[in-house]
């Protein structure tokens, strides 16, 4: 019996050693130089920018780019927050201007050391930690075959009887965008405007695509999306009748950013990647895969991008967004649920 046990012990030990060796070999492979990037799912899907960017960057850096995808931008932030100093992330890619301040306050990021001088002057980018990689204006999309005279202002849309679908500001980025938009245009009067809008809102969806697919199936006259949405329909489907409505009051912009994780020990490689993100090469890929606008002026893009509306920008600083969000959300949920 005793010999039996020792034999078992030995076999156990052999197995452990084998497993150990396996892990060790994995580690050796990994030691090559690996950059872990936290991002959101659609960025790395087969039709997103991820795969192309990975190929090009890996050829330049002699490293291996490791995308770790979570559901969306806010999940990247939450994951980094939960993991704290144990995080594997070197770069957080896919936060936006509404999340910048929280990421900074939670001390999840560190300053970069790249040159951002060639970013479009219109962005007026000053931040030393976050690097923008694309941006877009929120806009209401309509079908120009059905709507001949689209709304020309947010006020006109709110006080019309057109059927509208928008996204829940508690769960989606465009929803938060509309909330910001309402506050930027109406300030303290936003609550009553939400109520007026609620009277002809078809539904408030959890995320962007639920709203957008309902709209495409004829579920509403207008849907909240981005000014770039028509470009997708032109380029991928050769459909030109989906248009973004240009509003007099101006539009709120979403700027998507990347930053180096505070706990990354591969600063140099991470900086190299951030610089790559705003290179002309990457900037001509991101707009036609992520369907947003490039952050540099000389990116090569299909002609459809020249036909997009160019709105005036309004909105708030990341600091104000972070500070006011909860109060704005409460105001919205009270007003819109009546």
């Amino acid at each position, binding site marked *: 019996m005793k010999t039996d046990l020792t034999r078992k012990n030995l076999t156990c030990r052999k197995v452990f050693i084998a497993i150990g060796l396996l892990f060790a070999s994995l580690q050796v492979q990994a030691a090559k130089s690996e950059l872990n990037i936290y991002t959101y*799912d*659609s960025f*790395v*899907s*087969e*039709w*997103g920018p991820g795969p192309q960017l990975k190929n090009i960057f890996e050829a330049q850096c002699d490293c291996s780019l490791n995308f*770790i*995808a979570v*559901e969306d931008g*806010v999940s990247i932030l*939450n*994951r980094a*927050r*939960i*993991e*704290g100093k*144990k995080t*594997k992330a070197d770069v957080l890619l896919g936060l936006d201007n509404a999340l910048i301040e929280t990421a900074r306050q939670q001390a999840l990021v560190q300053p970069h050391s790249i040159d951002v001088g060639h970013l479009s002057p219109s962005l007026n980018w000053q931040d030393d930690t976050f690097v923008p990689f694309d941006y877009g204006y929120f806009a209401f999309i309509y079908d120009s075959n059905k709507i001949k005279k689209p709304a020309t202002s947010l006020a006109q849309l709110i006080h019309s009887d057109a*059927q509208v679908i928008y996204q*829940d*500001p*508690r*769960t989606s980025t465009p929803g*938060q965008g509309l909330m910001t938009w309402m506050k930027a245009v109406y300030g303290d009067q936003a609550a009553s405007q939400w109520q007026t809008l*609620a009277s002809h*809102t*078809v*539904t*408030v*969806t*959890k*995320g*962007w*695509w*639920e709203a*957008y*697919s*309902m709209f*495409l*199936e*004829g*579920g*509403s006259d207008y849907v909240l999306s981005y000014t770039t949405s028509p470009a*997708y*329909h032109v380029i*991928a489907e050769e459909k030109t009748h989906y248009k973004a409505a240009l509003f007099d009051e101006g539009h709120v912009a979403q700027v998507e950013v990347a930053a180096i994780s505070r706990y990354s020990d591969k600063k140099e490689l991470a900086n190299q990647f951030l610089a790559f993100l705003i290179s002309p090469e990457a900037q001509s890929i991101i707009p036609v895969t992520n*369907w947003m606008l490039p952050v540099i002026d000389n990116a090569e893009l299909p002609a459809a991008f020249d036909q997009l509306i160019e709105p005036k920008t309004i909105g708030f600083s990341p600091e104000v967004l972070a500070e006011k*969000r*909860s109060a704005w*959300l*409460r105001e*919205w*949920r*009270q007003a*819109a*649920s*009546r």
Partner: protein
Amino acid sequence: MRKIANNPSLNLSQKLGLSQKQPSSSLLSRCLSRCLPLAVGAAYGLILLMTGLAFYGLIGFDQARLQPELLVDPYILQILGFSLEQSILSALFSVALALPIARALHFIPQLQASKPAFLSLCLLSFVMPTLVLITGLVTLLGRSGVITPLLPDDWNLYGLNGILIAHIYLNTPLAVRVLSQQMSHIPDSSWRLAQQLGLSRWQQFTHVEWPALKPSLLMLLGFIFVLCFNSFSVVLALGGGPGSTTLEVAIYQALKYDFNLSEALTLAWLQFTLAGLIFALIARMGKLNWLSADTASQRLQPRLSTLSEWIHQTLYGLAWVILLLPILALLPAVFDASIAKLNINSLISAAGYSLALGLIAALIAMTLAWLLLIPIRQASLKRQENRRIIYQWLATHSLVAPAMVLSAGLYILLLPRIDLDRWGMVWLILINSVLLLPFIIAQLKPRLLQFDQQYSRLSENLHLNFTQKIQVIWPFVRPITLGSFALALLLALGDVAVFSIFGDSHYTTLPWLIYGYAGSYRMAEAAVASLILLSLCALLVYLFERNTSAKNKRKSTHG
């Protein structure tokens, strides 16, 4: 099976005789019966630990605390009211509609030919991935839906309307299946007696059918109530605004952008307590009535009156149409998709991963369910009502524990401690298994308790060992075991909620692929993937139903 029912002692001793020729198996069985209590303990330990850890995960991070002041917040009170309203209405409507359909299936001889197909369709409807159902409903009843012109001008799918329609669509079929099975268990002798006593058709209903159905009706009401009270995807998709929200959705919203753990925790406890209490109440009411285990051929079924038969038959016909419509509504979008754009490989591998993950989760859930049921059966045999209810509540508590808390809590707890990019799929499977438990247990339990009531004393007297017990019980529970396994597999196939947190993009499942397509403007591809998912479900339903009914038929011809 019938053989056992007719002549149990003969059959048991035959089996006993058979097994005694194999001494090796009795050694194995002695070992097994000794390990069994340990395994039962481990099963209870596992499922309680998972819930416990989940709550601990929420509490432990960032000093989240209960916020009693939320309980008087007008918004929270409003969604609490709405949660209760929609779930009570959903449960009442589902059961009220199911009763006449189940009776039609039972009493109208002309419908017997289409009955198996209809019951299969019911199963498919109950497990239909909500994403697919919602797309179908929007195509039919949305603003530019096919049926919408026939509806009043102020019709709006979103809000209470849509939530009720989806919940009734999902749950009426469940109720039909349960009730129709229950009706077939009414013994012929009852009908004979009723006819001999000259009872009117109404009296037959109140004296024969009603007592047989009442416990099932109550259980169904409670079960559907809890399912709808905790409903997530349907409410999220069809709620239409912040007013029509359930607590489960509110928990998700609190966690998502605000990362407000305290609010999530408070809402979770509120939901857990309310749903838990209601579920415990039902567990108390839903006692098993004596029903014949297997009725022999049903020759003595009374007929319905002509008018009543017409009404029942019309309802049955309508049910066919209504259950099929959302599936047919998918087709036009599918024709829009260009085959060239489809990535066939990713569709096939997604279907493969879905099946593999579903199978493993269903197998684990089935094993856990059998183990968890052991103390429940013992308590039931010894007529220890309170003990039975406590065990039953513990075993199925994942039905009332907010699924959102289970996955989010475990995620928060495990993320800094375990490499979830490597081990996430293990947790995905485990969490899915625990979430499947209530459905399997609800199906297995009545049958096992029935077996115990009829044969446990006998098998005690015969001093059967473990293997022999299994040999005796297996033919009795085989169909329901396979059936509940299929149900679990089908439910697991539709999972998105857990995958969104623990999933690994290298093992994308079909529902996740659908979200992926839809999330990048590819609606037609999403429709194709939905249709594939639905066909896969339909195929599984067909395979399992054919398998179980074929075996039944063979058994009965032998008997």
